[in-house]
């Protein structure tokens, strides 16, 4: 693992933060709209501005956290000195409820883990529920992102729009307010997309990759991955089952460590524990996004469900 704390890292974090913050803020803001009185729709829409929301996509600020997963390509001409190549990311975006947000980003860039510090950002929401953010970076200008809120605020789709830095899409979904290992319990169907690196130590060839399989969590810290099939560079490869341990922190971040092979991964719990988004972090191996969805969904009335119902009022979009 490589810890970055320099200026370049800050810039990068800010960019990523921008990407995540905007959608998160929008979603959070709109979550609050669910509890708003019906008379809201008859009120004159407020102007769209940084830190506010669009009139056609009204929202009130509520604190909350979203987990984002991103996949793309770091460009060779990026101004931050980051390594070029495939990049997968996990972002945790926290709205403070007052129009400001904070973002913590972890990248797996071309086979290296990069953990960046939390940075703040601002955002605006259009009447059509699109969002745009700007993250000021001292001495270098600003980083930007663009996104759209869907599913009544349950999800935000986002992309980086700062030119020449990174080509990356992100999908963010709401995280539970509190987690333990018990939040992951049962079988999840997993699908993954990314790149198998030439330096990988898992015995897989290099090239573009997709995978599908199942991941079982026992709710007590043990997992079992099986039935996995990879399709790499046009050929199919069965992946051996693996077992090991997992840990879910109180803020719903997940770490996975296999004992039967070299697999490690980090991720986030979203959708009240019905979904998990993670990225493999085995050094030099795979740069990929993996999303797991529970085979049988649990009720959102479970203790791990968000206390803020995900809903947006985009009816006038």
């Amino acid at each position: 693992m490589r810890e970055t704390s320099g200026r370049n890292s800050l810039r990068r974090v800010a960019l990523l933060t921008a990407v995540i913050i905007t959608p998160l803020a929008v979603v959070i803001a709109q979550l609050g709209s669910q509890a708003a009185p019906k008379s809201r729709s008859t009120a004159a829409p407020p102007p769209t501005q940084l830190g506010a929301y669009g009139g056609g996509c009204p929202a009130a600020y509520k604190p909350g956290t979203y987990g984002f997963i991103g996949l793309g390509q770091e460009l060779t001409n990026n101004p931050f000195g980051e390594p070029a190549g495939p990049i997968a990311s996990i972002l945790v975006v926290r709205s403070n409820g007052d129009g400001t947000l904070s973002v913590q980003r972890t990248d797996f860039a071309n086979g290296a883990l990069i953990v960046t510090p939390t940075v703040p950002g601002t955002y605006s929401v259009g009447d059509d529920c699109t969002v745009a953010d700007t993250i000021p970076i001292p001495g270098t200008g600003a980083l930007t992102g663009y996104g759209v809120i869907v599913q009544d605020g349950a999800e935000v789709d986002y992309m980086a729009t700062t030119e020449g830095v990174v080509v990356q899409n992100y999908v963010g979904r709401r995280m539970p307010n509190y987690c333990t290992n018990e939040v992951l319990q049962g079988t999840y169907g997993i699908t993954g997309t990314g790149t198998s690196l030439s330096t990988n130590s898992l015995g897989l060839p290099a090239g573009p990759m997709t995978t599908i399989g199942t991941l079982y969590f026992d709710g007590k810290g043990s997992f079992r991955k099986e039935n996995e099939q990879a399709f790499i560079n046009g050929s199919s490869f069965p992946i051996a089952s693996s077992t090991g341990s997992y840990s879910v922190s109180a803020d719903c971040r997940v770490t996975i460590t296999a004992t039967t092979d070299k697999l490690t991964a980090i991720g986030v719990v979203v959708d009240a524990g019905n979904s998990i988004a993670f990225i493999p972090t085995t050094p030099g191996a795979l740069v990929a996004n993996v999303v797991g969805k529970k085979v049988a969904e649990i009720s959102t009335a479970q203790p791990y469900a968000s206390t803020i119902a995900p809903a947006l009022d985009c009816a006038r979009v």
Partner: protein
Amino acid sequence: MMTRTATVISFFVTTFLNTTALLPAAHGQSCSLARAAGTYGFSTSGTVVGVGLRTSVGIVTLDAAGNATNGKATSSLNGTVTKETFSGMFMVNPDCTGTGSFEIFNLSGDLLLTVTEDLVWDDNMRELRLIFTSAVPPDGKPLPIVINGDARKMVP
């Protein structure tokens, strides 16, 4: 005897028809233009072969007549960011597959691309998965592309 036979046949025919009528309800409604209608947020990602990665995020409204309107998106092609508008037509099969054809313009109104897509709706038509099947610029020379995406209704 003939009356009894006719009654039995009538019973089975009626039962079959009733059962058939219930099948759509038991297996969920079939897909249709009307059920596809709504405003979607979408994202796509992939590669324009020989040029670089392309991603996009945007919104589009599909109506019950098969029109795609008010499309707007921001795309990044190898790090060059462009704002676009688009419109077109789409169709839906009862099995929830479909196709679409769209014209993409820059903000000056100049045609950038004509694209076709294969489509699949899932999640009770709240989600749309897509893959680009062609992308042709105004010069008529198709671009080699590998791009897919997802769209979700903004208000399911």
